């Protein structure tokens, strides 16, 4: 069902998400334009996550930890008009990490922990800070696109694709802030 108000009461739902806390396995959230049903309900989460996918899921989780570090460091340095976007996207990455950690646990694995530090370079000026976020989001997108077709079962593909598409949205906003075309291609590849 499509809503009359497509963006809905997203602010209050984000508040609920924050209150629920990141790191909760299988975070219960609504999808973009998807109304109020949970992600787990939408992907029919009864199917098992394969133990053989633990390494791939942990690789994605490691990249999400990198993105969390990047947004944590970058957000205070962003242009004033985009600080709120940085804060929101940091929350998103925390949710992604929580969801991926839940998938790793569901597959019988141990979620990889954040590293002590991540290479973020030495950006000078808000433009270079945005450039770091652009690089991080592109790396995430490339990694998700590599992983999605190899993951099993289909419901896990869906769950990971729902994260990928959100990161694609982040990339569009970051690109617009860099005065680049927000949606440069009909296919998101992470290489634009």
């Amino acid at each position, binding site marked *: 069902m499509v809503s009359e108000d497509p*963006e809905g009461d997203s602010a209050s739902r984000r508040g609920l998400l924050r209150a629920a806390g990141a790191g909760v396995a299988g975070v219960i*959230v609504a999808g*973009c334009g998807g109304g109020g049903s949970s992600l787990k309900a939408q992907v029919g989460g009864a199917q098992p996550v394969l133990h053989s996918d633990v390494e791939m899921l942990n690789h994605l989780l490691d990249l999400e930890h990198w993105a969390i570090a990047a947004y944590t460091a970058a957000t205070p340095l962003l242009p004033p008009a985009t600080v709120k976007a940085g804060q929101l996207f940091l929350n998103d990455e925390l949710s992604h990490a929580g969801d991926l950690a839940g998938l790793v646990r569901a597959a019988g694995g141990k979620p990889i922990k954040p590293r002590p530090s991540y290479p973020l370079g030495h950006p000078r000026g808000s433009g270079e800070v945005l450039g770091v976020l652009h690089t991080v989001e592109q790396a995430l997108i490339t990694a998700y696109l590599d992983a999605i077709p190899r993951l099993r079962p*289909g419901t896990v593909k869906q769950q990971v694709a729902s994260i990928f*598409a959100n990161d694609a*949205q982040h990339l569009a906003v970051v690109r617009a802030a860099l005065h680049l075309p927000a*949606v440069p*291609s*009909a*296919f998101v590849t992470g290489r634009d």
Partner: protein
Amino acid sequence: MGDGSTRREWLSRTLLTGAGAAAGLAATPEAARAATAVPSDSDTLTKVLEVERLVVLGYRQVLASGALAKGEDAVIEPFLAHELEHVSTVAAQLAALGAMSDTAPLDVKTGAALLGKYHVPGSLTDLHARADCLRLLVNLESVAEGAYFTALKTLGHAELVTLCAQIMGCEAQHWTVISGLRNPGIYVKSVPWPFVTGSS
């Protein structure tokens, strides 16, 4: 994918007519899926194509309405080009699977029926205000996101999974930009959720 896919689909159908059609014996992705009554890749892409054609009609109607604000046409027009590319690409994949597809522009009557089918509020013709136009496009992009999200659950060919994910990402970006036009500077509206699933 070429003829290989077609042969695999034929092979899967053939296998399923035999006594050894149990999922454990299935030799192809199609056979395994058919054994559990999962739609074929052709069926899945046919549904996706229907949605893409509806989205194309929506963009055309909006651009023809003249109701967008100055400068917004330039933002929206490339998105129509993307949607047309999605239509041709999905149709090409269907052809590679040996399936017929129709890529002709939808008429408004058919489009209106599809709006009802996908529970999209609004109209393809009563587009007199900018707000109506942008709301329609956001809602259509939600349906497109949902179509690809649903497709990813059952698609068997890895290349098709990648393709559908890439297009789903593009639709999500369209959604964000159009929602950003509706709510400038309010990022919580243009990227409202950490997970994109669309509507179905």
